[in-house]
């Protein structure tokens, strides 16, 4: 199988603007992942192509990119699952500054992640046997939100993020849900104070781009709606 690709290239030392470069690949198998295609280009066609990847199995979340107009992980997308009749367009994640080719600066994304205090807050003394236990039912409520791998596919797919870079974004909101709904956590109120701001949770307009983009199939909007309910019905 032969395929055509359009990849957005940007070299900060030479280029003023990013531009699309065409690649034609021959003898490609349809059970290849998009990441294998990028490897093939980097190893056999153009060694200057730059992209992030670590585990290559959809766990580390470093190869999130915009493939055919949609944010996905290049390592968990097979060629047979996309239209290869037309050229495949590969761009870096939207909204974040491009460092080189498909590598973006994630500082803004992780700043927003840290804002929601993504760690257990509990100031009461631990039980004498040393562990804070949780029932299976309580743990199950967190399973879906705890699947997040911080690939930034959701936050950069959100039209609210494109227009307002201060919007906290779906990834941070899912993380906030994970700790606010944790029965062992005592920091729900301070987190909800952070979310209940103009650039916080209320910039979510239920566009569902994040749900379509999430490679871990988390229903992000459902988690955000639970937070919206909790915040708007909170008593002081």
């Amino acid at each position, binding site marked *: 199988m032969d395929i055509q690709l359009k990849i957005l290239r940007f070299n900060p030392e030479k280029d003023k603007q990013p531009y699309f470069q065409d690649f034609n690949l021959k003898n490609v198998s349809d059970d290849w992942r998009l990441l294998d295609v990028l490897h093939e280009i980097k190893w056999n066609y153009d060694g200057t192509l730059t992209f992030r990847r670590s585990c290559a199995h959809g766990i580390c979340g470093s190869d999130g990119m915009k493939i055919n107009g949609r944010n996905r992980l290049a390592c968990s997308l097979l060629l047979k699952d996309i239209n290869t009749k037309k050229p495949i367009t590969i761009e870096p994640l*939207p909204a974040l500054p491009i460092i080189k080719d498909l590598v973006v600066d994630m500082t803004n994304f992780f700043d927003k992640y840290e804002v929601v205090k993504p760690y257990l807050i509990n100031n009461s003394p631990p039980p004498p046997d040393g562990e804070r236990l949780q029932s299976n039912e309580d743990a199950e409520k967190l399973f879906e939100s705890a699947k997040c791998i911080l690939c930034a596919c959701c936050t950069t797919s959100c039209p609210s993020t494109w227009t307002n870079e201060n919007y906290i974004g779906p990834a941070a909101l899912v993380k906030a849900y994970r700790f606010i709904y944790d029965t062992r956590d005592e920091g729900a109120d301070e987190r909800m104070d952070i979310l209940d701001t103009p650039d916080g949770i209320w910039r979510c307009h239920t566009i569902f*781009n994040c749900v379509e983009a999430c490679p871990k199939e988390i229903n992000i909007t459902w988690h955000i709606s639970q937070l919206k309910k909790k915040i708007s019905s909170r008593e002081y």
Partner: protein
Amino acid sequence: METETKPAYHNIRTFDQKNWISQNLSYKKDTGSWAWIFHRISGIALIAYLFLHVYSLSPLAQGETAFNNKMQVYMTPFFMVVEWILFAFVLFHSLNGLRIVIVDWADGSNYHKQLYRWSWIIGILLFIAMGVLMFSFELKKFIQ
């Protein structure tokens, strides 16, 4: 005193992708994004209509005849059709508004695509019903 030094990667010149119009145009759209786009468009159209509405009622200050004369303009077939289209905007905005309320308050995010489809079906039925209601008098005249 120790001065704060920035890490080396802060000196790299990056390209800021801040063009939200091109992002909106190039990103793949699904039911949720279409619902949001139509909701915004119909919302802006309804605000524009609000101004037209206030303007068209302004002859009330000049007495009954002035108002009736003005209303004659809006009785023409052209404005009847425009009013019918206005109803379509009202319908979409209100039905999708209900959809958003269900998504936010009643776990509707698990079945938001069905809700969107149903809002179109109900909307089109009500739109046709309103058309029959608005134009039945004209149609009868036309047939006779």
